């Protein structure tokens, strides 16, 4: 078929099932936008390319499919960088398409030329530059395959504008041959047998679930194995939602702001089964001390994660779902369902001893109350996104997630500004679900302009700003480690007026000082069919506890007033 490169691209995107693209046009990508004009693909015009990338990421995380964003060359492309890095750190499949100057101008420092391949190679799984329109279908197929195969991640396609315009005979059926990226998905039977025997003979087994469990869709297998073994399950921030948090075996989040019981119990394990986690320092505390006396089994699809931070005794390179199934089947063959009453009792006792004591009222509305109220009013399948900072940690601690893909947060990069555009992406992916962004005032201000997108493109979400008037988490560290010398962290609450800001865009705006006000505003928001921003004024002095200071082992946990128990 004789077509321009641009038309070939759009046709190829349709062929791999793309339904939505988030982006902003510009000179070097205009032929492709012109081709989009005739396509059934929905293009969502955002107000900043960072939003396009975060929204594509949110779309991918909520749906399990690939998210797509598009930008012009130069500044359009460089504006994607934070979003692409976020997707890379959290293993999210995003395909970014950027315009580029003509082939003949590349390397000449042409107007709006940026070496986006050079810039994004370290933050993508792969990058392509299309040098010939005939390469288009094959490149698109490869990009989607790479983004979603094995450990997912972002892929960038750089598309020079003259290649977009050039016509050629395009073969859409041409298949690609990739000599690498053949991930081991099936676990090695010998390793499975070893793991099964260790878990069977364990006295105090603990399972640590990471984001890989969610990516591989292994929640059922996780719960089934945990129940069979009577093994408590802790999760990392990225693994939140992998196991329903009301399950009696669920310990909650582990790590720097993990629950007291999760951090204590995981260190008591004699056998640790870690699955789909890269042992981030935020999850393990000091690497050398983490479960150092336990026998460690590590399942991951990315062989490079095995032994990178924490050395396992039994490495299993495999898809999480397949590995958990295989271990379950191996155990079931040898032994009936285990009843580890002493261990279960110990966990129960710890849980009760460390249970949060009811919080005292401090005059201001407490983040915990706000978040629990959100949970109370939402159906189980609603989706939460977060900003970065205290708001994110409070959301992780207090919002109970019951299903995979319902808690979406920037874990690895910790990119402020992620929450709101990710919420837009999630809502586009799941229009029937309620999407709530629990955000900080600082984080929200980084991407608030896309309120315009949410109104104009009719993507209603709810934004709850836990407004402390500070770059709260940083202030908290200044409180703890810098003798309250508040350098550059006060945002001066009231500027902007978030209610007026919301209204300026045509969104609903509410302010809440009390739980009652918040509760009413939130139920109003649930009834509205446009985006609502609720500005909740909390105390600037709210602690984020429990807390394991950076670089310390998990048992150096500070529980503080609300954690109860020792500390």
């Amino acid at each position: 078929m004789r077509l321009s490169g641009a038309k070939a691209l759009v046709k190829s995107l349709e062929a791999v099932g793309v339904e939505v693209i988030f982006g902003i046009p510009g000179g070097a990508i205009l032929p492709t936008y012109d081709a989009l004009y005739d396509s059934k693909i929905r293009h969502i015009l955002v107000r900043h390319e960072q939003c396009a990338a975060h929204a594509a990421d949110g779309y991918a995380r909520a749906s399990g499919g690939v998210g797509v964003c598009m930008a012009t060359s130069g500044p359009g492309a460089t504006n994607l960088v934070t979003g692409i890095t976020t997707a890379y750190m959290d293993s999210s499949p995003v395909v970014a398409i950027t315009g580029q100057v003509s082939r003949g101008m590349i390397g000449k420092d042409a107007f709006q030329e940026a070496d986006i391949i050079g810039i994004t190679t370290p933050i993508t799984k792969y990058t392509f530059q299309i040098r010939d329109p005939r390469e288009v279908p094959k490149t698109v197929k490869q990009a989607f395959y790479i983004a979603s195969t094995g450990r997912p991640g972002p892929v960038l396609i750089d598309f020079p504008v003259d290649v977009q315009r050039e016509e050629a005979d395009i073969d859409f059926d041409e298949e690609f041959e990739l000599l690498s990226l053949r991930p081991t998905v099936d676990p090695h039977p010998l390793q499975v047998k070893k793991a099964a025997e260790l878990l069977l003979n364990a006295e105090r087994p603990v399972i640590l679930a990471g984001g890989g469990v969610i990516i591989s869709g292994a929640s059922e297998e996780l719960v089934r194995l945990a129940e069979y073994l009577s093994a408590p399950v802790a999760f990392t921030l990225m693994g939140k939602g992998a196991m329903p948090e009301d399950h009696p075996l669920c310990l909650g989040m582990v790590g720097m702001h993990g629950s007291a019981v999760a951090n204590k119990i995981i260190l008591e394990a004699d056998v640790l089964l870690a699955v789909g986690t890269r042992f981030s320092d935020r999850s393990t505390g000091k690497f050398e001390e983490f479960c150092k006396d336990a026998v460690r089994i590590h399942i991951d699809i990315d062989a490079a994660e095995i032994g990178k931070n924490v050395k396992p005794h039994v490495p299993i390179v495999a898809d999480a779902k397949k590995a958990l199934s295989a271990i379950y089947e191996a155990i079931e063959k040898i032994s009936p369902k285990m009843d580890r009453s002493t261990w279960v009792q110990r966990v129960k006792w710890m849980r009760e001893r460390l249970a949060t004591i009811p919080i005292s009222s401090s005059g201001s509305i407490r983040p915990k109350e706000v978040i629990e109220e959100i949970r109370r009013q939402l159906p189980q399948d609603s989706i939460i996104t977060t900003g970065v900072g205290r708001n994110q940690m409070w959301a992780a601690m207090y919002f109970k997630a019951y299903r995979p893909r319902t808690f979406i947060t920037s874990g690895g990069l910790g990119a402020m500004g992620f929450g709101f555009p990710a919420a837009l992406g999630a809502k586009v992916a799941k229009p029937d679900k309620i999407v709530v962004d629990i955000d900080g005032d600082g984080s929200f201000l980084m991407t608030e302009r896309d309120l315009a997108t949410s109104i104009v493109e009719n993507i209603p979400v709810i934004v709850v700003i836990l407004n402390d008037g500070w770059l709260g988490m940083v202030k908290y560290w200044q409180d703890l480690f810098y003798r309250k010398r508040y350098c550059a962290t006060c945002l001066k609450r009231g500027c902007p007026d978030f209610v007026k800001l919301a209204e300026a865009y045509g969104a609903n705006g509410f302010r809440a000082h009390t739980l009652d006000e918040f509760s009413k505003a939130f139920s109003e928001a649930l009834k509205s069919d446009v985006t609502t921003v609720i500005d909740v004024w909390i105390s600037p002095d709210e602690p984020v506890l429990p807390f394991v200071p950076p670089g310390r082992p998990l048992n150096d946990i500070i529980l503080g007033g609300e954690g109860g128990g020792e500390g």
Partner: protein
Amino acid sequence: MGVKQPKNSLNIISFIVQNRPGVLFRVAWMIRRRAFNIESISVGPTERPDLARMTITIYGDEAVVEQVVKQLRKLIDVIKVSKLDPENSVIREMALVKVSVPDQKARADLDYYVRAFRGKVVDVAPDATIVEVTGSPRKIDAFIELMKGFGVKELARTGAAALLRSPKGIPGEEK
């Protein structure tokens, strides 16, 4: 159950990559990004025009070398990675050394060393000579050490190229 203990030694990693623009950049970037401290890297075509072979030499404990191998395997352009056992591999490097030879005596000494190392004099000028020498990286190190007595003006090394010996291969000259 014990986790294996680290040990420092020279390691050779040989790998086949797609012969495409940007591949060297991707490999070099990964090495920098992960803060691996390599000794040398070399690249060149193979028997197949679409593939190239790269060779890295690196000192490091087992854990570091494992990580280098795994991170290389993760790169989309890398097709096959092998860790070569120095005992069972042929490993060669070439060096060009420009030394000063002010007088007859120096010339004679140099000649002696060059012959002992089976090197070659490839350029002669009144006050300087360029010598070419090939061999294992260790042999090259030793040769350069000797050349320091003359005063090394300039030095260029290619980095190691290596291949695994065939199981029944007969070691030729110099192992």
